[in-house]
């Protein structure tokens, strides 16, 4: 017979209790749903703390769901998601933007979301927030936030150049004159910051400029690269480059610190610029509004337009936990906490819904920059020719833009070479 002394009995009790607790823990771990979330928010220093907090808050509110955040850089995420979708190993949810969203939809790997969006959420979505996110199968991506580009102007630099700081240029001619005034009065300032790199994002960013001249090189209603409007756009780009009004070859992100230091007069950038500049310069909101204003793009022969640089959330059709995945998507895009801790703070963008349900958040949307974007700029959003051929078109068009900006080849030849490189 086995005899237990008091100490032995205590140890045995503790052991049994620990075993039971462990089994219970194991059972609850087994019941837990694990979602994989591929995103670049966790890959970037400025947004990582915000997204990590939002994920932690979601997990706290939904203890049955674990979110595994997979950090992938912005420039890599489309490639990785396409390859993972092809190899049958996609994440449950992913952050995506621009042409990459449409590319993923084209693979047929995305779950249509119409069935998940309840009526009240559909009614609360901003008008046009889901534009370009639908195909024959319905809604293939949910708008997480809105981040269109605006024409930012530095009032102090304008004033020093003898320009009215409250009257930003409205036409291409006014802009050209303003650039000349700035260059002659402040040679160390970059008069206009635009992205002229050769990548798909650069075409998205330059598309509204082309449209300002009435040029539509590809897509619906295309007039080709050899149209008079496209040549006018290329000629203007060459003119402002030769005059030293732009600094070619820089990514838009490389202009932001310079803008924060007061070395850029005009910059064509997204709503997030405010957060980036304030982060770099530690400028207060009041000082920022005194220094910077934002408005619509100056127009030439065409109308002012802008592009949507906001981020979307997609769910993969092969995922096993679709209800949980949708719950997470809905939380990221609509929960007041997520909007406060990520969308409007670290990501410095606008929510895709009309009312957040929190008065202070809705009030923050009334500040000058957010208001200018909501009231003036977002209504000028225009669709882009996104699709599988967009990257090829971007390579051809941006190579031509670079040639116009940096070379001496006749504009007619450049336009012809762009046309030759466009997907037929």
């Amino acid at each position, binding site marked *: 017979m086995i005899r237990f002394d008091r100490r032995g009995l205590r140890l045995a009790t503790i052991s049994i209790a620990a075993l039971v607790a462990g089994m219970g823990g194991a059972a609850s771990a087994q019941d837990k749903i694990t979602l994989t979330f591929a995103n670049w928010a966790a890959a970037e220093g400025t947004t990582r703390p915000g997204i990590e907090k939002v994920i932690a808050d979601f997990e706290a509110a939904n203890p049955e769901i674990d979110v595994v955040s997979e950090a992938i850089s912005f420039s890599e995420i489309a490639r990785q998601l*396409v390859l993972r979708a092809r190899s049958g190993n996609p994440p449950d949810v992913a952050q995506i933007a621009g042409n990459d969203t449409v*590319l993923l939809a084209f*693979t047929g790997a995305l779950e249509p979301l119409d069935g998940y969006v309840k009526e009240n959420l559909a009614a609360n979505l901003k008008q046009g927030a889901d534009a370009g996110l639908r195909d024959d199968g319905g809604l293939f991506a949910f708008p997480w936030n809105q981040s269109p580009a605006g024409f930012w102007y530095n009032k102090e630099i304008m004033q020093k150049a003898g320009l009215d700081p409250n009257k930003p240029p409205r036409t291409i001619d006014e802009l050209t004159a303003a650039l000349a005034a700035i260059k002659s009065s402040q040679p160390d300032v970059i008069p206009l910051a635009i992205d002229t790199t050769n990548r798909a994002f650069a075409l998205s960013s330059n598309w509204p400029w082309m449209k300002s001249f009435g040029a539509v090189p590809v897509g619906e209603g295309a007039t080709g690269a050899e149209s008079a409007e496209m040549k006018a756009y290329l000629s203007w780009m060459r003119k402002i480059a030769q005059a030293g009004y732009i600094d070619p*070859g820089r990514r838009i992100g490389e202009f932001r610190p310079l803008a924060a230091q007061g070395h850029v007069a005009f910059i064509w950038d997204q709503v997030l610029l405010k957060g980036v500049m304030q982060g770099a310069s530690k400028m207060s909101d009041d000082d920022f509004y005194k220094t910077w204003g934002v408005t619509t793009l100056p127009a030439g022969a065409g109308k002012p337009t802008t592009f949507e640089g906001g981020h979307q959330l997609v769910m993969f059709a092969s995922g096993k936990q679709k209800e949980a995945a949708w719950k997470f998507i809905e939380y990221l895009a609509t929960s007041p906490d997520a909007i406060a801790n990520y969308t409007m703070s670290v990501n410095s963008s606008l929510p895709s819904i009309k009312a957040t349900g929190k008065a202070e958040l809705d009030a923050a949307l009334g500040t000058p920059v957010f208001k200018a974007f909501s009231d003036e700029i977002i209504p000028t959003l225009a669709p882009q020719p996104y699709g599988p051929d967009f990257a090829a078109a971007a390579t051809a068009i941006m*190579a031509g833009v670079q040639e116009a900006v940096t070379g001496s080849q006749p504009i007619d030849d450049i336009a012809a070479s762009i046309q030759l490189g466009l997907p037929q």
Partner: protein
Amino acid sequence: MAAETTTTEVRVRSRARHEPWLDRMVLPTLVVMAVVVGYPIVYTIALSVQNYNLLDFRPAAYVGAANYTKLAGDPIFWGSLANTAIYTFGSVGVSALLGLALALLMENLGGARFRAIRALLLTPWAVPFVVVAFLFRYMYLQNGGVINAVLLSTGIIDAPVPWLNSSTLALPAVMVANVWAMAPFFFLLLSAALSAIPNEVIESARVDRAGTWGMIWHIKLPFLRNPLLISSLLMVISNFNDFAKIWAMTQGGPGYSTSTLVVYVYRLAFERFEFGYASAVGVIWLTMLMVLAWIYMRVLRMESR
């Protein structure tokens, strides 16, 4: 003596006749090679005759030589091929000359001070390629770059030069960065080769009153020929595949002025997802590399004789 040699040769030939053409001991190596090297090559060749787009989930369609026909008329491919040749042979040629000059200059300099200089000269080789690329990218900036700042302040130029933003200057500018990173390799290798020249040869030349140039031209260079050839071929192969520097500095631009074959393949495969066409370019690229590798092997064999 002659009869002895003949008997040995007969024995060797007889042994060679009895050796199996495939030893089972090399099978594991062959299997590994087939999986690691053979399969990707065969698969790339198979893809090159298909219309295979990664975005299209339908099965790939066999298109025969269509991708190769398209390639023959593709001006970007030919431009990229020309850029690859200029970048590779230009960089290797200049680096080899620079490395040789440095090795000859530093050959007889001893002492701690010169050892430190020697170590300093080697540091660019130790810097990762991506770091080199970004370093030069920021140095070349049209506004705010240190190169333009120095040239402007010394009055050599009166306006900033668009080093990486000019179709004509971009490729030479990238090559300068490449030469900076590669020349130390040649310096290291040729310094070792110089120190291996027998002292008797040098002494004899001195006795014959060979001058500095005569010594370099008639004595040292013949000794350096083989190491120079082998290292150059090695670097040609390495530069043929160089992606990091060009991508980080110019992404192949402005226009296509710095686009090389590897950059073009990357854009086709990972931006446009046209794996079929990208594979066709890859097969041509692979063929050229194999020719270079074959030349390299021949040179090595010649040297061992």
